[in-house]
C-alpha cells in the first residue's frame, strides 16, 4: 500500500535521510515533487504543509528517503533545478528543536 503522504510514527523517522525543499511555485504539487524525487531514490515520506483553509501548499516541504546516501545524492543532483522557472531551494532537514540537552 502506498502511503508516502502519510506521516510515519516519529520513532520511525530518520532526520538524517530527510531534506527540506522550498521556493516552490504555487503550481508545483505534491505529485510533481514525488515524481521528481523518485527519479533518484524511493521515498518513505513526502509532505508539503497546507494552508488549513485554502488547502494550498505554502511553498515548501519535506521529503524522507530510506537512507542518508539517497538523501545526499538527491541533494547533489537537484541543486540548480528550476520548477516553473523558480530555482528549487534544497537542504538537509534540521532536527526539531526539543528541550533535550546532553549537558
Amino acid at each position, binding site marked *: 500500500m502506498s502511503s508516502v503522504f502519510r506521516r510515519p510514527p516519529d520513532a520511525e523517522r530518520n532526520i538524517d535521510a530527510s531534506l527540506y525543499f522550498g521556493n516552490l511555485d504555487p503550481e508545483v504539487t505534491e*505529485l510533481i515533487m514525488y515524481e521528481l524525487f523518485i527519479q533518484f531514490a524511493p521515498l518513505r515520506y513526502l509532505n508539503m504543509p497546507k494552508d488549513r483553509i485554502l488547502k494550498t501548499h505554502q511553498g515548501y516541504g519535506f521529503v524522507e528517503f530510506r537512507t542518508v546516501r539517497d538523501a545526499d545524492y538527491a541533494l547533489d543532483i537537484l541543486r540548480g*533545478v528550476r520548477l516553473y522557472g523558480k530555482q528549487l531551494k534544497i537542504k538537509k532537514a534540521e532536527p526539531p528543536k526539543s528541550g533535550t540537552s546532553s549537558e
Partner: protein
Amino acid sequence: EYSNDLSSIRPGKVSSELRKALGIPEGAPPWISIMKDIGKPPAYSSLAIPGLDTSYDNDGYRDSKSVNTSKLHE
C-alpha cells in the same frame, strides 16, 4: 486518494506535468547529464538508465540483467 495516480509514476518516466514544470517539452531531463558526472543514484545502481546506459527513452529505468519489468505494474 493518491494511490491511483502514484501507480503510474515511475523512475525514468517523466510525465507531461513534470516536463511542463521543468520547461522541457521532450528529451532527457537535465539530471541525466549530471548522472554522467556524479554516477547513478545509489538506490538504482543495478538498473539500466535510459540516456546513460542505453539511448534515451521515456519508458523508465530497467533491470539491466533481465528484461523483466515490474510485476506490480499492470
